[in-house]
């Protein structure tokens, strides 16, 4: 039975190169091609391929954001394809994710293709993909924007525009300059992927953008209220007080 493959790359010659290698390697059926991240998300959801060759750097959504938009647990087996990407390569190594470095030859392709089919036989690598995304900050690559899906529509929200993130069941609500948005994720998972120098937990269910904090107003019994630049207020819980007020001794 041939493996159903989706090819994602913004350069046509790169896509036809992959097609050529797949035709020679077999057994593969290229079910589609996508030239950018959004098209890739649509193609993955519409075609449900077994394996996707995913370019990391593309205009619009990059390869990692494609995974975010689809959800790592719903992703097919992924073979990343990249010309160069320091953090990504380190992360690939750590999580033993399959990848191809451009330009590659027949032998390298064969190896990646073999490993992709093995991982398909083992039932995909969703857990590895989730760990890969969570591990990127360790390579110095924090989230710079969040992928927000509204049905078919995908928007990218730069983290600088976010004021506050609040846990909301299986979702996280973002308070942004342009209104509210929801992403399907947990607050702690997002927190681990955001730059801690920029985002701080102020409550069990709230994360704020420190650049957006206008003032801290004393409340009763040593509690504080965080006032953001739009005038909105959130409670600063004692447990997280030291993140904003410094010196943990004082908060005891």
């Amino acid at each position, binding site marked *: 039975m041939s493996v159903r493959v989706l090819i994602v790359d*913004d*350069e*046509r*010659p*790169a896509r*036809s*190169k992959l097609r*050529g290698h797949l035709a020679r390697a077999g057994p593969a059926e290229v079910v589609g091609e996508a*030239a*950018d*991240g*959004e*098209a890739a998300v649509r193609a993955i959801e519409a075609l449900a391929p077994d394996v996707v060759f995913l370019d990391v*750097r*593309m*205009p*619009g*959504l990059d390869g990692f954001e494609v995974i975010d938009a689809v959800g790592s647990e719903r992703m097919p087996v992924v073979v990343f394809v990249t*010309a*160069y990407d320091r953090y990504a390569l380190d992360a690939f190594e750590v999580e033993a994710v399959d990848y191809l*470095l*451009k*330009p*590659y*030859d027949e032998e390298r392709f064969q190896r990646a293709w073999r490993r992709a089919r093995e991982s398909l036989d083992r039932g995909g690598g969703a857990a590895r993909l989730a760990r890969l995304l969570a591990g990127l900050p360790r390579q110095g690559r924090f989230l*710079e*924007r969040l992928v927000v899906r509204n049905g078919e529509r995908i928007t*990218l929200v*730069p*983290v*600088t*525009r976010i004021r506050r993130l609040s846990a909301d069941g299986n979702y996280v609500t973002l308070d942004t300059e342009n209104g509210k948005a929801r992403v399907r994720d947990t607050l702690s998972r997002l927190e681990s992927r955001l730059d801690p120098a920029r985002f701080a937990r102020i409550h069990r269910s709230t994360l704020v953008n420190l650049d957006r904090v206008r003032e801290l107003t004393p409340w009763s019994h040593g509690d504080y209220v965080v006032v953001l630049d739009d005038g909105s207020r959130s409670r600063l819980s004692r447990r997280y007080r030291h993140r904003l007020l410094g010196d943990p001794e004082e908060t005891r």
Partner: protein
Amino acid sequence: MDAEPRSSGDWRAALPAARGWWLIAAFLTLIALLNFGVRMADYLAAGKQVPWLRILVQELTAGWLILPLLVPVLIWIRRFPLQRSNWLRRLPLHLAGSVAFGVLHTLGIWSSRLGLYALFGWGRYEYGRMPYRFVMEYQKQVVAYALIYAVVAVLASLRRRREEALRTAELEHRLTEARLEALRHQLNPHFLFNTLNTVSAFVHDDPGGAETMIARLSDLLRSSLETGSKQEVTLARELATLDIYLDIVRTRFESLEVAIDVPESVRGFLVPTLLLQPLVENAVSHNDQPGRLRVSVRARAERDTLRLEVADDGRGIGAGAAGMPAVGVGLSNTQERLRRLYGDRYRFELADRAGGGLAVRIALPLRRPAEAATEAPR
């Protein structure tokens, strides 16, 4: 001689520093002592008794009195330098200047000696009939004035030459930086490895295409490795270099559209070397929109100005990911080079376009290669 001051209002700039004053004082003392020697010898030759202290006082007062008078003289010279275009009109100003200098100097000599003679108890100083004294002293004073002018002019010309050398060195440095920037972009792993990947894509199905890509990539690398120090090239040449780069990226991205709108009539004008390529690279490499990217390069001549525009329909200045402006570091070097090459006779602006995207607009003095040789840009 064109010692035109940068700002004639700043009279302090006409005067030497403290060390200069000491040097001048030493020089005047030396001249006074030489004159003293001449007159001593004259007395001795005539077999007369030598009033050496009086002669010394006379010569030193005459010499040292030039020091305070140098202040107005230097300011006057700096204010009205003789130039090829105006020397005939300005010469009378300096004649008047030398006369005023002479009159003041002679009066100074006379009054200071009156005082000193009284002080030393040598009786009343007799300077003879003043009109003749003025004429007698003026003959030396006009030579002194001319000498002062000559020294000022030589120093100014030396300083200008040094500044010119500095400017040239700075320009060469900037050009080297522009070449390095272009090279850095071409050796940028993303550009290089993706281009090589395209080559490898052609190897199986289109060996001719692979050969062409390798040749273009080599041309491009060669163009930035060239270490010529030519600051400016014709627009036609600059466009030819740009074309090599575009050949490569157009092969890689079929969604890239580049429109070159440069009439034949303006292709002979001069632009700074490596001006356009970094601007177009900036548009292409910072593109963050999926789908089609249109880049346009326009050039027009307007009276004495060459107007260039590189525009794209990408994401513009303000809307980069994480608020990062979509403008590369290369652009600041481009601006610095324009400033060094054209002084205040250029314009450089970045603007968000109404329909989205970024436009870089540059205005330069309109010049052809032959003119550049005769009229050095300032």
